[in-house]
């Protein structure tokens, strides 16, 4: 009898363990609220879009003092060149893979000359860049990733509502273009 109960418990716990692992691993691919997935589905390619204007994108617990803008990219044909102006207030940028993991992040102080200048390339394009040594290498932050696609998210701090316009102008002036240098 005791052996039977032990056997029963062992089976139950083993199955519980398997189900636990399966649920944890499946949540990122099945979750409906996944913000990265919404961005990958709703945004056009190679264009910065103000996230508050897009239907179907809802980033939970977003910071109300920040304006967000994102650009979706693919690296199969060419690298991506991100460029933009300056903003006196704090801003930051993060490159995510399509699953929402951060590949690279920076803020205005870690940017070269406080300006948004970034090249996102895959390893093959990186090798080509090293051979050509274009001048962008000196003025841009080069992000090498093996992720085939993803998005870059710009966050601009809005200190007072009166400064929202300035932050929005900074975001809408940012460019996200295929890199033609290689």
């Amino acid at each position, binding site marked *: 009898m005791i052996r039977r109960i032990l056997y029963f418990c062992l089976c139950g716990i083993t199955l519980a363990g398997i189900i*636990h692992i399966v649920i944890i691993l499946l949540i990122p691919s099945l979750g409906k609220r996944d913000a990265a997935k919404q961005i990958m589905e709703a945004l056009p390619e190679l264009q910065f879009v103000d996230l508050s204007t897009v239907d179907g994108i809802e980033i939970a617990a977003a910071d109300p003092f920040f304006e967000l803008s994102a650009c979706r990219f693919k690296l199969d044909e060419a690298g991506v060149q991100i460029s933009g102006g300056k903003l006196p207030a704090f801003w930051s940028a993060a490159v995510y893979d399509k699953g929402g993991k951060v590949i690279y992040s920076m803020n205005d102080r870690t940017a070269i000359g406080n300006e948004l200048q970034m090249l996102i390339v895959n390893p093959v394009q990186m090798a080509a860049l090293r051979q050509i040594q274009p001048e962008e290498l000196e003025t841009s932050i080069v992000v090498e990733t093996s992720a085939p696609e993803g998005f870059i998210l710009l966050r601009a701090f809005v200190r007072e509502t009166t400064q929202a316009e300035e932050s929005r102008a900074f975001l809408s002036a940012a460019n996200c273009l295929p890199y033609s240098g290689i």
Partner: protein
Amino acid sequence: MRILAFFLSVIAIGLALGGVSAHLSIRQSHGLGAINVGPWSAWPFVGGAEVDPYTSARSAADGTLPLGAAEGLSFEATTDQQGNPLQRNCRYEISGKTPISRIWTVTAYSTDGKALVSQSGALTAFHSGNVVRYADSSFVIKLDDRPSSGNWLPLAGEGRFKLILRLYDTPITSNSGVIDPVMPRILPKGCIS
């Protein structure tokens, strides 16, 4: 018949235990991969490439986008200093100092991640530039249903809520690791019955 009953009950137990344990491991604020300071929890590795499956499941289920290490670190609190859940019909004081950062923001959200808005339409949030401080740079933010002087964050309605304190451009996410950051305390000041 007995074998069938055995199988069915094993499956039922497996589903229940597996489901509940998966839910708890990503829902509990003091979950896996977190660093905890009083009621505050942060997931410093949520933005990294080597993120563990629990942290990645958590941010996918939450619908949040993690901050990269160079952007900042966010701390979440769902309870007060004594471990009781934060309730919208109670009063609290957030007091103390934050770790070093260029700017920080503190915002009250509903449990599903929408920023709370008071009846007058005011945002229930503060940032390091608009909070009134004492001479030693510490501050007190009052979460209260009644208007109050100083830093007042209006609370209204019922149900649980959470606070998120974000530190932007902070050295505590750098390579030296996150070593016991000093966080403000969330003191309960009674409830409206």
